């Protein structure tokens, strides 16, 4: 169903801290495995935070974020 391999990990990058915090709450409520990590410098020179999730939850996380119109980009790591 999804392009996301269940054995990989992904990071989700947001435009603002406001969106990171809002999304973290949602991912936490879902009970997914996640971690707050710095945005890798090959993705952005921004030293802010993003959310790392595993391949099993990324597809559903993406749908949830789209449902509440949170702009984000997903990168495999």
């Amino acid at each position: 169903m999804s392009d996301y391999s269940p054995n990989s990990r992904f990071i989700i990058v947001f435009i603002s801290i406001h969106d990171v915090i809002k999304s973290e709450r949602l991912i936490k409520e879902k009970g997914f495995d996640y971690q707050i990590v710095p945005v890798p410098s090959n993705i952005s020179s921004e030293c802010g935070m993003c959310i790392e999730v595993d391949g099993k939850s990324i597809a559903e996380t993406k749908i949830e974020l789209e449902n509440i119109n949170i702009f984000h980009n997903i990168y495999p790591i």
Partner: protein
Amino acid sequence: MNLYFDNASTSFPKPQEVGEFINTYLNQGGTYGRAAYPRVFEASKMVEETRFMLSKYIGTSLVDNVIFTFNSTSALNTLIQGFSYKYKKILISPLEHNAVGRPLEFMKVSQGVNYQTLPHDDDGLINLDKLKSLKLNDIDLIIVNHVSNVNGLIQPLKDIKRIIGEIPFIVDASQSLGKVPVLADEWGIDMLAFTGHKGLNGPTGIGGFFIRNPKLVEPMIYGGTGSNSEKLVLPKFCPDRFEAGTQNIMGIYGLLGALKNQPKIKYTIDAYYLLLQRIKELSDIKMLISNSLENQSDVFSIQPNNVEVSLFTKLLYDIHKIEVRGGLQCSPLTHITLDTFPKGAIRFSLSNFHTDSDLNHLLSCIIDIHERLQSK
């Protein structure tokens, strides 16, 4: 006995959690965004929780559009100075504070933006019938102080917005937020300024505004946001667009402590109305309240006829240790409307911590000072 009746200046006491939350912040540290270690994440989460709780008080679902500033004065300056004026005409309520009056005067001198007062009754209540018949097609902006910091009058925001239609509407909620219900989405309020240290019972140095359409206003402060840093222009999205620079995170923690622990009102409305009634019955005192108790908040003022306001205020403190504010309360426009300019008035403002016996005591102190000065 709680003798502090200057809560419209800044509320006191604060819920004890205000100090506890500030202390937690001072011990934990951390800034908003800009890194990803847990200390920063925790602080950022608290900031966002505060923003979310404030959105509930404001009555909006647009949480991102709730912006932190230092107080409502800085919020109102951003909104008034950052707005782009097409016709250069603003209408304001007759009960504005200098936090609105002075930025408007600055806009008048610097950009030729003129302001006029909305039609009103003698207590400053905006007259809806007259407003309906006003020609509004060349008005850029309408600004209304929700609750007067002098006579405590509550303006009917919902009805005003219904009449003015699409014209952008700024509400000064400095005195109302936390005390009087605000329903920004339901009433169609476009922008709203608030401060943390009055009715919300938080610390000083934290306030903010709500803006429904951020495109209407250019930011006043430019700088780092921890987002889009490769570009030299501020991001367009909220809240970052209006939150350049490190915010008062310590103040935000304190405000969150307050929002989570708002004191329930301890005095009864009957005791308050009785206090107003008894003062009204005193001779030689002009009472500044709304004409109808329906529109009355917990702020009111008096102007003694033949006595200096400063003397009355001083005696209240010297003899009874009652703390109140005499003078113009930073609101010359209001006092002109109420015909109490330039002498001013003595203002009393309650807190939810006051009890019926505090109000009774206040009444006896006012009567005592009044009698002493009358018999002089």
